[in-house]
């Protein structure tokens, strides 16, 4: 498999310095499961599980797909662990509280999200991978990088922080146009939230305009990340069952299983459109 982001670790040099030429000449090595410096104390040979990431903006259908994939994988006999943003025991609630105030600044929020991410990585994901589980991540470092980058925090800085993150086996990007995301999100909550519309960035006083501009900036960042990290881009505007079919096909082929047949149970049938 090609790994377009092979040199990530070296690009995240301190002070934003470009990578040294000599690093590129280093003899070819099998791609590390980390982007750069590995997390202290992790033995790679112990990690027998698989990490699949679903990325995409609000309203791209990620959570729906995670529910369906979990059921499918479990029915195929695989144990599944999930992760998502703000779900760490350590700081998950604190981030909620910070976001409810308007006093938090961009670097603080960005670093609180990093804390949340690494707490989940070290306490939930790595133990699951050591036990041979399949981890389904509802968003990963890419959303965190994109959100901070559109707020003016340097990309190299962000990649430097997340160089200790584990490289996913596959990263799917459910790409939807901001207008479609708006319709879906509005239907869900009958309004659009402060952060979803990036109102801290003062892009527009009109909520719709603010949402569209913010999500367009995020989308542009994802286009860059997609090239750098080799995302599998999917049309998030397709029907739930069609997107799910493509996801199952790619995942099944990665896991080396043949069966991709799936019909959601009664409990999840309302998601199947």
């Amino acid at each position, binding site marked *: 498999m090609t790994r377009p982001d092979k040199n990530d670790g070296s690009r*995240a*040099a*301190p*002070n*934003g*310095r*470009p990578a040294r030429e000599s690093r590129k000449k280093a003899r070819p090595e099998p791609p590390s499961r980390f982007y*750069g*410096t590995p*997390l*202290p*104390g992790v033995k790679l040979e112990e990690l027998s599980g698989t990490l699949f990431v679903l990325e995409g903006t609000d309203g791209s259908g990620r959570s729906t797909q995670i529910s369906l994939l979990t059921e499918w994988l479990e029915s195929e006999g695989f144990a599944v662990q999930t992760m998502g943003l703000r779900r760490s*025991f*350590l*700081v998950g609630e*604190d981030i909620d*509280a*910070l976001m409810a105030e308007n*006093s*938090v*600044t*961009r*670097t*603080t929020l*960005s*670093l*609180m999200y*990093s*804390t949340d991410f*690494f*707490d989940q990585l*070290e*306490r939930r994901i790595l133990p699951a991978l050591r036990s041979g589980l399949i981890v389904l991540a509802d968003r990963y470092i890419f959303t965190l990088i994109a959100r901070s*980058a*559109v*707020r*003016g*925090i*340097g*990309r*190299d*800085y962000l990649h*430097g*922080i997340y*160089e*200790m993150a584990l490289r996913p086996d596959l990263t799917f990007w459910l790409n939807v146009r901001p207008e479609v995301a708006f319709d879906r999100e509005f239907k869900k909550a009958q309004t659009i939230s402060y952060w979803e519309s990036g109102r801290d*960035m003062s892009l527009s006083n009109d909520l719709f305009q603010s949402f569209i501009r913010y999500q367009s*900036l995020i989308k542009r960042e994802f286009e860059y990340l997609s090239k750098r990290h080799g995302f599998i881009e999917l049309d998030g505007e397709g029907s739930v069952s069609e997107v799910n079919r493509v996801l199952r096909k790619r995942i099944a082929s990665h896991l080396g299983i043949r069966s991709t047949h799936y019909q959601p149970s009664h409990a999840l049938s309302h998601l199947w459109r």
Partner: protein
Amino acid sequence: MRLHLGEFHMAITFPNIPAAEETAPAKTAVIKRQYPGALVVVEGIDGSGKSTQLYLLKRWLEIGGYRIHFTEWNSSPLVKSATRRGKQRRLLTPITFSLLHAADFADRCERQILPLLHGGYLVLADRYIYTAFARDAARGCAPRWLRNLYSFAPVPDITFYFRAPLDVAVNRIVAGRPKLKYYEAGMDLGISLDRAESFRIFQERILSNYDQMIETDNFILMDGTVRVNKLQKLMRQIVGERIDLGQFAPKKK
């Protein structure tokens, strides 16, 4: 009046302005940024005498009516509950410990230190990013990763490094405290089951990390065993030589 030039380890840009790495020539590692304020920092292990000396410096400037602000490490209410929860329940790994403290520092930096520097204050900081470099590296974080993590912080005008022999410093702390805290003593590293012993070894590692920064980060070495008033006299003299204090003096009407 001399216009003071503040420095940043790296550029923090604003939305819609291309990021520095796209526009700046490849070799510009340090981006200069102007602010009229100045930043004086004290660093050193616990018990090195740095806080006493910074307090006396602050009193001297306060009494003189200078525009100053004093700030210390780990004082932001925003991330306090997370830090407390993590420490009480011993949930922190070297990485999350480091990130949480960086978030805390970022809050102080963006909401206090930077506005004050832009507003023309002389900012006095009891501990700064070098504390994180020395302490978190002693916990096993990669120095390169730490340097990047804190690269949003302005570079101090003066960094006083108070150095006392390990025994002197450790005795000062142990004598004044009934019980050393878990993380403070580096118990999370599993060096020793005895807290006093663990604390000593942890401080020794931190001390050696500090020593390595004397040259790379232009520390001014201060001998923590010198008599308090004598050391303070030297500190005031150095501040007077390196910073245009007139800039922060009370305005005459």
